[in-house]
């Protein structure tokens, strides 16, 4: 499956390779059609994709893996049927992918060096996992070289750099740890990778991105985060099979209640579908079998930027507010603010009433024509009952007393 023994770039055309593997022409056309759909292109583009891939001399892909859980590799490789991953690997020559390459040790590193020097500007580089920046990057070294060193060297001469998963995009989960892990775009200055966010990324989107590149020679249209718009251009909420229940006001109130069993909307259980752009509900997982919301669990927003910190807690609608030493909610703070103002108002009202009672003797009365007049001239000591009125009140009392 993996072109580990031969030298990169000399494996012949795709058609020959597919024939050798026993992949039928029909299966290949199915793949091209599905890629057309994934890229949100009209069906008329399918022949163009078929032609481009058929004529293609197998391009070379290297897969760098740093601080990660290999989840994106798993997502890419683990298909129950010969599917996207296998076809993509047939389309591409993959001399370096830690999990599946035949070579090991010095031989593997030599393969990588060979690609970088011999195929300068002609290979595709996929990055998985974050790159540690603390302590000179010593937390992740391969063959004695730091992740930053390897990433800088390999991405510099790549024709296309794709960051798969959140760790390679913005540091992901690892960025919250002590190694100061960052994404490839942050680690290597001047690099603008295609970011396939998600935890893990969906292999359909990686395949479609590569097919787009092989067919049109360019990266697909990207959003502000460098994510392909064909996969990250729409809200999950707008493509959700449970959306009708949202609009109807039918919500799961607690796990395994009647609503959960009826497949109602998971909005109240903290689903981040309305906050997340992804084609998760379309591409799905495990050979397009299902996806999280379809399985009854709310979206956790894994395709969004910095989702581990921004989207948590995953089972609440809103993030917590971090106070000194304790996390609370915006609602709690808001209710405390209202309670505080109400209490102050009540206390102040009581104070005003008390003052009015005390000042009754000198209070003004309303005449029939609406004028306020003092009933008696204020005695000098009338307002001196409390310290509060003693100072600033003097001039005011004089005013009420009609000296003006």
């Amino acid at each position: 499956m993996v072109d580990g023994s031969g030298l990169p770039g000399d494996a012949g055309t795709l058609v020959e390779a597919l024939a050798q593997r026993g992949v039928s022409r029909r299966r290949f056309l199915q793949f091209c059609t599905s890629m057309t759909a994934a890229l949100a292109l009209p069906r008329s583009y399918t022949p163009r994709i078929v032609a481009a891939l058929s004529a293609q001399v197998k391009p070379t892909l290297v897969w760098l893996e740093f601080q990660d859980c290999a989840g994106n590799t798993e997502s890419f490789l683990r298909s129950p049927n010969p599917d996207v991953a296998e076809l993509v690997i047939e389309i591409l020559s993959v001399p370096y992918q830690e999990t599946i390459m035949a070579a090991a040790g010095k031989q593997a590193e030599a393969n990588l060096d060979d690609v970088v020097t011999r195929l300068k500007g002609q290979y595709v580089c996929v990055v998985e996992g974050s790159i540690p920046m603390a302590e000179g990057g010593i937390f992740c070294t391969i063959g004695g070289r730091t992740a930053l060193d390897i990433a800088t060297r390999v991405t510099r001469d790549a024709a296309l750099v794709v960051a798969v998963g959140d760790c390679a995009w913005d540091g992901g989960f690892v960025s919250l740890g002590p190694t100061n892990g960052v994404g490839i775009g942050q680690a290597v200055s001047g690099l603008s990778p295609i970011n396939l966010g998600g935890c893990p990324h969906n292999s359909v989107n990686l395949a479609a991105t590569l097919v787009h590149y092989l067919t049109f020679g360019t990266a697909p249209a990207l959003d502000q985060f460098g994510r392909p718009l064909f996969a990250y251009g729409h809200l999950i909420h707008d493509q959700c099979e449970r959306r009708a229940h949202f609009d109807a006001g039918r919500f799961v109130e607690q796990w395994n209640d009647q609503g959960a069993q009826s497949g109602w909307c998971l909005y109240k259980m903290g689903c981040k579908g309305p906050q997340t752009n992804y084609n998760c509900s379309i591409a799905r997982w495990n050979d397009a079998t299902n996806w999280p919301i379809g399985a009854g669990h709310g979206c956790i927003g894994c395709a969004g930027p910095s989702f581990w910190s921004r989207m948590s807690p995953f089972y609440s609608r809103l993030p917590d507010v971090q106070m000194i030493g304790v996390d609370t909610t915006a609602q709690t703070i808001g209710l405390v603010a209202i309670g505080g103002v109400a209490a102050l108002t009540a206390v102040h009202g009581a104070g005003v009433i008390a003052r009015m009672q005390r000042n009754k003797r000198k209070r003004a009365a309303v005449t029939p024509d609406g004028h306020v007049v003092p009933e008696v001239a204020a005695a000098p000591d009338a307002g001196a009952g409390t310290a509060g009125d003693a100072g600033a009140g003097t001039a005011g009392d004089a005013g009420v007393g009609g000296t003006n």
Partner: protein
Amino acid sequence: MAGTTAPLDRGASGPVSDPAVVERRIEALEDADVRHRGVGQNAVYVWELPVRVTHWAIVISIAILAVTGAYIHGPFLVPSSPLEASTQMATIRFVHELTAIVFTIAVGVRFYWGFVGNRYASWRSIIPHNRAQFKAAREMGKYYTFARSEPVPMTGHNLLAGVAYTAVSILMFLQVATGLLLFAWLIGTGPASWLLPIVGWLPGGIQAIRMLHYFVTFLFIAFLIHHVYSAILVDIEERTGVMTSIFTGYKNIRPHSTADYLTDRPGIGDDARDARTIAQQSGPRETPKTDA
């Protein structure tokens, strides 16, 4: 504003040191105050129609937005039947968005009126920016903390209320801005879509905007409590008809009894003497001769 006030010597906008100049200006402004007078001996037209209409539009729209927003945050209603077709959430969201447009227009019109309306609607009488105004605000602070027995009498806003309205205005703009960002996020395309990239660049992203939008509503409710209370309080203390004035536009102000002229004109309120006058002034300066 310009049409109803007497011509003023606005040449000098800095502090005025000559007491005679100050006296002359105060007299000119008091004459202007008299020209405001409408029906009835002491009725002064304070709140113009756009001020009253936007006030009530904002009150009603905030009430609707708070209730529908609370539902959108945590849907507390259950459709009548789990089987029949329902558009409960969709309808309430639509009402929320529609009301938000009304709110935004009302806030926008009131903002505009702060530049073209009369002196009581002007931003100059709301946002404290000269010495006398800060002094008046401090004096009102003393009143609210029982260190002064009477409010500083003002025809329009008192200056401490002005500070509160400035803060609430900022919250309103914040609410409009976060609401538009959320709207842009959800619709993706259309006139608001150019706002979408902003959501991505803001720290905390879309969740922070949602939280802010939710939280500010609580501050509006807290302000509502204070606002209604202090309006009733001042109505009782000053007996100028504050509570009815927001319906009719007119307040019952005896001539030369308020301190507005000292605080909302360039060159007047900057003087130390004016600040002193405000500190001393309290209650009616003229007592009608109808004493029993």
